[in-house]
């Protein structure tokens, strides 16, 4: 127990230690996170009127970001599956970064949901009267929090074992890894079911949404991890081989092709049928009665996704610079498509045919940026701690086992 306390203390201490670039980066993130907190406090005082949401478009940027991030979190499974199921060891030493990402991203998801609540002070009502299993939102609460705990346990256990210089006992984490794989798929499926189950909104009421969610998640998630791993290997001593990046590239390749295929299926069904239910899709892609706020966004997303897919299929993306470009394009493209492109059009036109557009306010955008900054802050801290600990540069024995060695030993500077 005491040992564990020293571990936690070391974690806290380590997150304040680094070179000037680290401090600058962390200060910037803290600043943006605090600006977001400031905007959120104003929202708390005045209510959600500070956002661009209305009774007509009652969900906006918060839920859009939430939806996208659930996908990002689920993507950790795409690192775990090759290693634990196919024994593809290229990804062995980067799996933990995927899981840590999942932890940081799920925290962001929960923050986005909290930001969207009109009465966050009544959060405990979820515990006192939980409408399970009827409400899909309760399923999502379980799925997300369960996933958070699973990943916290797996990462925490592995890192703590490294800190104690102990070989991790498979009994304590391998079963959880397998549960986490299924769970990862479930978090995104359940989140899709939130929308799919609403018969009153034909734009969402389509069975293809869940598979589309998964395909886009398994493209955007690993793309994000490819970029992160390159940053990790550049600024820390942790070794990340090109093999790992190229294995991930193959995953994105397949996921992106499936994603585009499912998108085509969706677009075909909507527009070829051309029933009254196409109004939302028409608003999204072409604008409706002079309202076309989302049109430039969705075509940007479409172009980015198409370009990313082409790049990923071409051999050029075996080179890192092209691969990075493809990753960046798919991350942004999918963020637009899965976020604003999926949530907002379902509300335009309203169920009574009124057309009211949604424009996020600077306030709302600031809160979103704040949550993103906080998520990045968390992830940076996780990487900052896990790299030296996993490399064996920082262990209990070194720090506390021998008092003489303590004076000599500095932490693993990176």
């Amino acid at each position, binding site marked *: 127990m005491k040992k564990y306390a020293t571990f936690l*203390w070391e974690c806290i*201490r380590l997150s*304040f*230690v680094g070179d000037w670039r680290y401090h600058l980066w962390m200060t910037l993130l*803290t*600043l943006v996170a*605090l*600006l977001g*907190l*400031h905007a959120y*406090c104003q929202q*708390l*005082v005045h*209510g*959600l*009127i500070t*956002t661009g*949401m*209305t*009774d*007509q478009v*009652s*969900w906006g940027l918060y839920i859009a970001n939430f939806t996208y991030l659930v996908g990002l979190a689920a993507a950790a499974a795409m690192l775990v599956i090759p290693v634990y199921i196919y024994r593809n060891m290229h990804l062995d030493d980067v799996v933990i970064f995927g899981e840590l990402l999942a932890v940081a991203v799920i925290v962001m998801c929960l923050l986005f949901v909290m930001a969207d*609540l*009109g*009465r*966050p*002070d*009544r959060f405990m*009502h*979820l515990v*006192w*009267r*939980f*409408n399970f299993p*009827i*409400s*899909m*939102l*309760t399923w999502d*609460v379980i799925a997300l929090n369960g996933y958070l705990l699973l990943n916290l346990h797996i990462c925490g256990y592995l890192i703590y074992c490294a800190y104690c210089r102990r070989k991790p006992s498979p009994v304590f984490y391998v079963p959880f890894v397998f549960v986490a794989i299924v769970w990862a798929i479930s978090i995104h499926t359940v989140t899709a079911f*939130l929308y799919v189950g*609403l*018969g*009153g*909104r034909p734009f969402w009421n389509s069975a293809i949404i869940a598979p589309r969610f998964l395909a886009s998640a398994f493209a955007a998630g690993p793309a994000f991890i490819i970029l992160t791993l390159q940053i990790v290997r550049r600024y820390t001593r942790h070794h990340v081989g090109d093999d790992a990046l190229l294995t991930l590239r193959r995953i994105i390749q397949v996921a992106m092709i499936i994603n585009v295929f499912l998108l085509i299926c969706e677009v075909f069904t909507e527009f070829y049928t051309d029933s*009254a239910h196409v*109004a939302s899709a028409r608003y999204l892609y072409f604008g409706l009665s002079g309202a076309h706020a989302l049109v430039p966004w969705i075509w940007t997303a479409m172009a980015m996704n198409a370009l990313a897919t082409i790049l990923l299929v071409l051999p050029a993306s075996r080179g890192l610079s092209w691969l990075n470009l493809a990753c960046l394009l798919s991350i942004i493209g999918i963020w637009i498509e899965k976020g604003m492109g999926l949530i907002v059009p*379902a*509300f335009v036109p309203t*169920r*009574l*045919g*009124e057309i009211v557009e949604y424009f996020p306010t600077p306030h709302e955008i600031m809160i979103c940026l704040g949550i993103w900054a906080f998520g990045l802050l968390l992830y940076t801290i996780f990487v900052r701690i896990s790299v030296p600990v996993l490399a064996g540069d920082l262990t209990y024995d070194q720090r506390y086992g021998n008092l003489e060695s*303590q*004076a*000599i*030993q*500095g*932490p693993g500077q990176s």
Partner: protein
Amino acid sequence: MHDFQEEASDSNRSMKSATGDGAGSECSRRGFVVQAAAALAGASALAAALAPLRHFASDDIPTIDEFLQKHYKEMTREDKERVFARIHDAVQKRYGVAPKLLDPPPMDGVEFVYGLNLSRCIGCRKCVHACVQENNLSRSPEIQYIRVLEMEKGSINLETANHHYDPPQVPNPEKYYMPVQCHQCADPPCVKVCPVEATWQEPDGITVIDYDWCIGCRYCEAACPYWARRFNFTEPVLPDGELQPNMAYLSNRPRPKGVMEKCTFCLHRTRVGRLPACVEVCPTGSRKFGNVLDPESEVAYILKHKRIYILKEDVGTIPRFFYYFDERGSRYHEPIAPYTPESDA
């Protein structure tokens, strides 16, 4: 001076080993100052970020009582008395009027339904405003439970409806009018999706909300096919002296910020034998309300004898709100034998 150095380096042993390897005490003191300054800057930045919270109105922060208040269905009689007394005082303090806060229970053997005559409605929106007055709806920002649509003749197509018609006189003979409000569905999707059971269907068919339980996630608003739910994006505002003091816990008492609200068929009136405000005010008699389980009721007669239109029947929520038409002509025709191939031969 020397003592201070000792102390600083002592108490910050871990920090010292963190910042410098084998650094002298001079260096450590500077490190300490830098760290203290950073901590101070961080703390003040955090305080600045939290500064807007000062603007919280004093009655905006939930008290312990409010925080621990039980769900409506779990409250005992004593709980209710206590809670109602508190709400009474809060309303009186805020609006300067002593409200009559009641909690009328659903009546046995009653299931309310609502019929709207599309042949008669002239789109005057008197119902909209009577509802606003009766139910203490926010005037700023404006919340209305009833939306009257000006429809194109020749179809019942919501996509071509005009929501914001504003002529000097109604009705426009080229159009017809279709008011839409909560349909009090028998299979309500809004109730299904609520994660905290803050909204439910009462035995008399009215879907209600416990405004003190709702967490404001707006999932019900996304689920409703009739756009019948409204959210309090900020503190609702009523003009002085316009508070309607006869109120019920589950219907028209003033709502707080950040929760959902909806039409309750004016249950504070209808459960004690009166008509909803919108029915009472309608100058054309287009609105009919009553107990469908009573075969003598007007609504039962209409359902049995008139042509009925259910809006969005395909979403399968089984509304208790229906549209009907006056029939002229068909019923006065002499009965004749229908066409069959044999009768032709």
